[in-house]
């Protein structure tokens, strides 16, 4: 072989004229952006800023419209209490949407597990703690089945969970006999099931343990997503699954784990919902699936995956709660609450599209 110091370039050196050209390829130009581009860039780096601003503005606007009552500690804690269950479902939904998936079965898993916990503890005399654990395992299993359909059978998440939504819903109707378990029966046989309905007073606010649990779930999942390798892999899978695979991530295993964790969170929400509602009703939270997606989308988490903070979903759930409470206090018909939420969803997705169009 020839020595490497002098590779032959005879007749092949047509790029030599480049020596005179500008060599600063990788350097950045100073930014001379318009205001709009600056805002776009800021939001691109901080996707949770949008829901935070919307929450602050809607609080201010409803404060003016509805007056001092709105800003009372009691009303604010009531808003948090009202959104707590949907908030927990939104936390589970966020995990899945970050992987570019969607889960239409979250509320069905939640209600199914609350029915299982109720049947075991109230009618079969199983200790409440064990009944709750069975519910948790069941939630994880239901999530595992969703993940199995998606990663092993390779069905799209929308189709898989559309199917399991019906399956889980039918199961919960069968197990409950389409009958509610009355609050009085729960109180008499298994009061621990209502644990998260308990309240404590704090500077005039009545805070339920369910509200605290919701915030706790968000904080734990936020930590897992942002400060563990698993969380980075979840984002990478949602961002570009093939790239993550090539970078050495076992993407199917990550996806499966996400659905299991989401199922578990739904089961925890199922326990909390018993305290929130006061009874176990198979008909409750029928719109929970779509409401959880609403909170996630308003929270600035991209439906295309890989983008957004789970904390956005918490703010998204709170925004929905603030709108409902504010419009109700202002004496606006319920149908206009629904109308307003619809516009919020459309605007949120439009803003997400605009942010994603950023180009350095």
């Amino acid at each position, binding site marked *: *072989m*020839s020595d*490497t110091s*002098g*590779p*032959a*370039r005879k*007749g*092949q050196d*047509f*790029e030599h004229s*480049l020596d005179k*050209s*500008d*060599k600063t*390829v*990788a*350097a*950045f130009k100073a930014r001379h952006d318009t205001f709009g581009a600056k805002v776009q860039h800021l939001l*691109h*780096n901080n996707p949770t800023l949008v829901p935070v601003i919307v929450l602050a503005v809607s609080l201010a606007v409803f404060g003016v419209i509805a007056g001092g009552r709105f800003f009372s500690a009691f009303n604010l804690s009531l808003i948090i209490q009202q959104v707590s269950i949907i908030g927990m479902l939104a936390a589970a939904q966020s995990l899945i949407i970050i992987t570019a998936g969607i889960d239409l079965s979250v509320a069905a898993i939640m209600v199914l597990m609350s029915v299982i916990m109720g049947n075991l503890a109230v009618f079969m005399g199983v200790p409440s703690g064990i009944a709750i654990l069975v519910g948790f395992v069941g939630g994880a299993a239901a999530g595992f089945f969703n993940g199995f359909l998606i990663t092993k059978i390779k069905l799209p998440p929308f189709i898989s969970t559309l199917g399991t939504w019906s399956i889980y819903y039918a199961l919960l109707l069968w197990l409950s006999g389409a009958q509610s378990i009355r609050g009085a029966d729960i109180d008499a046989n298994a009061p621990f099931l209502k644990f998260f309905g308990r309240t404590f007073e704090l500077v005039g606010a009545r805070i339920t343990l369910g509200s605290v649990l919701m915030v706790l779930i968000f904080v734990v999942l936020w*930590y897992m997503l942002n*400060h*563990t*390798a*698993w969380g*980075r*892999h979840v*984002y*990478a899978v949602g*961002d*570009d699954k*093939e*790239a*993550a695979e*090539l*970078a*050495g*991530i076992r993407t199917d295993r990550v996806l499966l784990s996400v659905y299991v964790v989401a199922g578990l969170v739904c089961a925890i929400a199922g326990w909390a919902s018993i305290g929130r509602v006061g009874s176990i009703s198979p008909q409750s939270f029928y719109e929970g699936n779509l409401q959880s997606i609403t909170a996630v989308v308003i929270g600035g988490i991209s439906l295309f995956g*890989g*983008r957004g903070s789970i904390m956005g979903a918490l703010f998204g759930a709170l925004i929905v709660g603030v709108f409902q409470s504010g419009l109700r206090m202002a004496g606006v018909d319920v149908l206009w609450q629904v109308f307003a939420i619809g516009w919020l969803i459309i605007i949120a997705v439009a803003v997400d599209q605009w942010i994603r169009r*950023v*180009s*350095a």
Partner: protein
Amino acid sequence: MSEVTPVVQGRNLVKRYGHVTAIDNSDFELRPGEILAVIGDNGAGKSSIVKAICGATIPDEGEILIEGKPVSFKSPIEARDMGIEMVYQTLALSPALSIADNMFMGREIRRKGWMGEWLHMLDKKEMERFARDKLTELGLMTVQSITQPVETLSGGQRQGVAVARAAAFATKFIIMDEPTAALGVKESRRVLELILDVKSRGIPIILISHNMPHVFEVADRIHIHRLGKRLCTISPGDFTMSDAVAMMTGALEPPESVRAA
């Protein structure tokens, strides 16, 4: 010429897919410290033989020796664990994640102490420091911040991040698949400099490319692949680009002196 142990050596490799023979009794050899270009017409089986070497496909016959020791990789992850890095044509970067996150994808560092042990907490500071050091070493630290998302980088900078990732973790060799194919003239120039820079650190490189000027500029030897096997290995000083293309397409028989044994 003294006989040196090749970094990687493939002997009589065969890979069949049904009736198609992708690798037909081919040999392969990468020597220490060199840049070996692999060229060949579309469908000649360049990527098949390189995949066999990095564990992405398992050859039906033949053996692969890494530094003289036989290996049989079941997956690219096994090859990676041995210090073999691959820069894919698609780069395999997650656009929304930061440069540091991308560099450590799949091999993140945890904090020391109970936070890392029990809470699996990542040592972000250490990962960012490491990423910044590696990019600076390769003269790529013109990016504003190590935490900025990869999608805000230019094509050349992204390629730079992918090369830096490979260079940071490779201990045996790096395979680069068409690293300049998606880049403009000036950005290609920068990436070629980067490749030579990595070579000067003593890490041998397998370069798959269609770009003859680039191949002739940086390669020490050129492996010409034709009809599923190594046709010959030439030195870029001894032949012209048109000779290489002629051999690649079968228009010219390689002289006896460079024919594969």
